[in-house]
């Protein structure tokens, strides 16, 4: 397991590549979910006054 994490001494480079990729994908998915919720909430209230 430690060998796997060490990546032949290049663990820092390999895991910060994969880690940052995972983080930015997660950020995109979470912000997209927030945007969709806001848009749906707005769509479900807009026009109520008519």
């Amino acid at each position: 397991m430690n060998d796997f994490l060490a990546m032949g001494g290049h663990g820092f480079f390999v895991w910060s590549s994969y880690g940052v990729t995972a983080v930015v994908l997660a950020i995109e998915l979470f912000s997209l979910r927030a945007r969709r919720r806001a848009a749906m909430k707005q769509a479900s209230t807009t026009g109520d006054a008519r």
Partner: protein
Amino acid sequence: MNLYLFSSPATFYPLAGRLAPWFAGAASILGVVGLWIAFAIAPTDFQQGEVYRIIFIHVPSAWMSMFIYLVMAFWGIMALSFNTRLSSMLAQSLAPTGALMTFIALWTGALWGRPTWGTYWAWDARMTSELILLFLYFGVIALRNAIDDPRRADRACALLSIVGAINVPIIYFSVKWWNTLHQGASVSLTAAPKMAATMLTGMLVLAFAAWFYTIAVSLWRVQAIILERERGAAWILSMRKAKMVTA
């Protein structure tokens, strides 16, 4: 079936909602399989050791960064030619994911370059043109946010996307046209791949995962864009009654 039917936001909205989960599911499965190949199956590279495993995300994200831009420019051409709202909305939905893929390509490239070439960054043609691609995505996003009238923003963004598309062949062929630190293509349509079959398989599986991810995310985003831009439209109000839009 009349395909023009789907060029209207009202008909595309439910279609996008039905398709997105399938693409997301395919992306997840391919992502897991691809990562398994990348870490469990693919052997250690005899020259580079383990650090080469970065290319399993570097190459697919770099491909996507260029491809998404071309698709965005294509929707820009459609928007300017036919003045269709949905084309612009699709273009708008691709820009953030394109920027994200470009960022991942640059980031992973730097982290691969340091142990392999001895530097995180060089101002060579490939890297510089990829950085310009990132700024083009930022430019398209910023331009849209800067213009209040959505239809004017559509035309301006379409124009910037189309003009900026000239950068994509420059990125792609930069390693041939100039003497770059970045190596030439390892995979091309005209020559046998210069890498082992398992490595190539892992890279292609993750490339398809990136494709399906991009499609799923842009379909979900275009739904949000449609709701934002068409708010108050009669079809949204009637969809609400049918409980198709829920908060």
